[in-house]
């Protein structure tokens, strides 16, 4: 399933990045070291963190996209940083739980 299909199904806001990538799974977490050791390449990563380290972690684990949940709004600099590192950032008012419940089979 492509990120774009998830955007449509979950009514996500596209903050930046390419949504044509294939998503292989989903991981939820806010502790960055934990995410780094458990998230997999091509995962959709759901978090409430929105600082620049999120961009670095998404890049290092090679996540398909990051969904920033619960209406948390990243600063424009973070969105620009994500753009420059080819990280797809998405936003939603929903909680991580609500997003996961709506997530299609990956």
């Amino acid at each position, binding site marked *: 399933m492509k990120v774009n299909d998830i955007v449509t199904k979950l009514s996500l806001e596209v903050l930046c990045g390419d949504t044509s990538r294939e998503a292989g799974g989903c991981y939820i977490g806010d502790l960055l070291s934990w995410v780094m*050791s458990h998230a997999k390449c091509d995962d959709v990563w759901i978090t409430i963190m929105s*600082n620049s*380290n999120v961009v*670095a972690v998404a890049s290092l684990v090679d996540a398909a996209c990051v969904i920033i949940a619960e209406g948390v709004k990243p600063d424009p600099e973070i969105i620009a940083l994500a753009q420059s590192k080819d990280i797809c950032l998405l936003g939603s008012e929903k909680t991580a739980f609500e997003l996961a419940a709506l997530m299609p089979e990956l």
Partner: protein
Amino acid sequence: MNEVLKLHYDVDGENFTSAGDASVNVKKKLRQMGFSPDVIRRVSIAMYEGEINMVIHACGGEVDVFIYPEEIDIILADKGPGIADVELAMKEGYSTAPDNIRSLGFGAGMGLPNMKRYSDEMKIESKVGAGTKITMKVKVAGE
């Protein structure tokens, strides 16, 4: 081991937002050189955790990366406070990171354990009051 690429990075201790730049840069280099995704992931995550540790605990430091065809060596050196009890520091969940760092999503007590998990060999040399040097080797699995 005659083909070697050496990379050197200064890690800025003041700047939490640029932490990770060196690891992302190494990741990019390794990708260009055609290393496998598994090797790239292990090197870049191990190095990122090391970089973050330097920023949190040691006001920055230096990272040297040696890329050989069969292994990648990462040497992290700082002049920080040192680690009093290395065995305790290696325990998953043990952290001395301050609250402001935790609010950024760090301080889970996973940094050193992750570095060990993702490297094939890791050596910690640390002296309280003088600094810490960590050497990690990531082996490139032979075909």
